[in-house]
């Protein structure tokens, strides 16, 4: 291993010591403004690439974690850290792919009411948070995902959500009304 410079050592030590992922500004606040945190992070990520632990960025926050390919050896039991119900998984997916989204919008996609507890579980896990209100009649509360969600599911940003670009391109993230109008237009165009 090459000898890292002092900025790298500081950033490395701080990320190891911290019990939560740190943003560049967190690191700068802790280590001082003179440290070139961004460069150090880049160099460290390179140093650790291919090792048993790696430096990853999730939603603008950095942390060390074990390499994913070692999962089968490291996990003693294959139990999920937080067993989500099917409703929980679907609700989480809807919030992640549609955010920000209101409860009524989630229910419209799922075709059933959200039972009490589904959103609570997601919020308790630290994956979902209320994100203000939609400025429509009734001013419904809207929900969005958190940096903790990105970290837990190994996403650098929401753009990394599996298949999100395909879903968007296929119009599957648009509301039914909008998709229907688009289809109508298309067929009108064909007839013209």
């Amino acid at each position: 291993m090459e000898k890292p410079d002092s900025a790298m050592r500081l950033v490395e030590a701080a990320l190891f010591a911290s019990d939560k992922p740190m943003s560049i500004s967190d690191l700068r606040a802790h280590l001082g403004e003179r440290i070139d945190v961004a460069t150090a992070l880049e160099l460290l990520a390179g140093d650790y690439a291919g090792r048993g632990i790696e430096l990853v960025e999730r939603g603008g926050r950095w942390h060390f974690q074990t390499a994913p390919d070692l999962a089968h050896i490291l996990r003693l039991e294959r139990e999920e850290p937080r067993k989500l119900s099917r409703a929980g998984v679907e609700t989480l997916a809807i919030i992640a792919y549609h955010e920000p989204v209101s409860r009524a919008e989630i229910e419209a996609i799922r075709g059933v009411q959200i039972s009490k507890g589904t959103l609570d579980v997601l919020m308790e896990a630290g994956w979902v948070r209320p994100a203000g209100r939609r400025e429509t009649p009734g001013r419904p509360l809207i929900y969005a995902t958190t940096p903790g969600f990105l970290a837990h599911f190994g996403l650098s940003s929401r753009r990394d959500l599996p298949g999100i670009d395909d879903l968007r391109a296929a119009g599957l993230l648009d509301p039914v009304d909008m998709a229907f109008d688009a289809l109508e237009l298309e067929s009108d165009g064909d007839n013209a």
Partner: protein
Amino acid sequence: MEFAFDENPEVAAAGADVLMLDIDGWEGPLDLLLALARTQKVDLREISILALVEQYLAFLNDAKALKLEIAADYLVMAAWLAYLKSGLLLPRDEAVDPSPEELALRLQLRLQRLNAMREAGARLVARDRIGRDVFLFGAPQGLRTVRKAAWEADLYALIAAYGAVTARNRPVFHHVARRPVMTLEAAIERVAAMLGERIEWRRIEAFLPGGTDEAYRRSALASSFVAALELARQGRLDMKQDGAFAPLFIKAA
């Protein structure tokens, strides 16, 4: 795009055509419809709504035969689907809005969207997850920022504060300075002595002591005036004045 259809556990358990009759296994009619649509093994955009309606109604029929409690929303959906089916089969009635085709298309769109989210959710939870597939440092010491107060005060504030305390709590003495005055007794004595046997009129100022202390002179004047009044009462001198504020003259009686 194509969506690979996951094997739905409920459907798989019951085989391709026969569905397991367990209403509780589906979260509402839309969920059941999606499961049925998937048995058509085609892209959700290609599904036959008519076939879907048939399957749904057959399913509910079987459920009824088994005397299962069927939730109201399943029956509402059944009624709506039966209506939709009749609309699709019968000649188009232009007066009806929205058209059965539109309703069928909307149902199809809803099923596509639900399916997309179901698959997205499955892919999401299959990712490398912290605590299951990847692990964080097991023994972080934690970073702490200890905020320490740097107390500030300056010397002026210190001195001014002491001054304020002292001013507030120092015992207060009232010194009344002695001012030079001529008492009435002294004035009577002085005027009587100076008057002697003089019989010519003299201004009262002539009886005042010399000196430059104006305050004392004013006091002496006031006292000498009162002394003159007293001596006049005793019949020992006479006073005269030509008018208000005019010079005051006295002489021995």
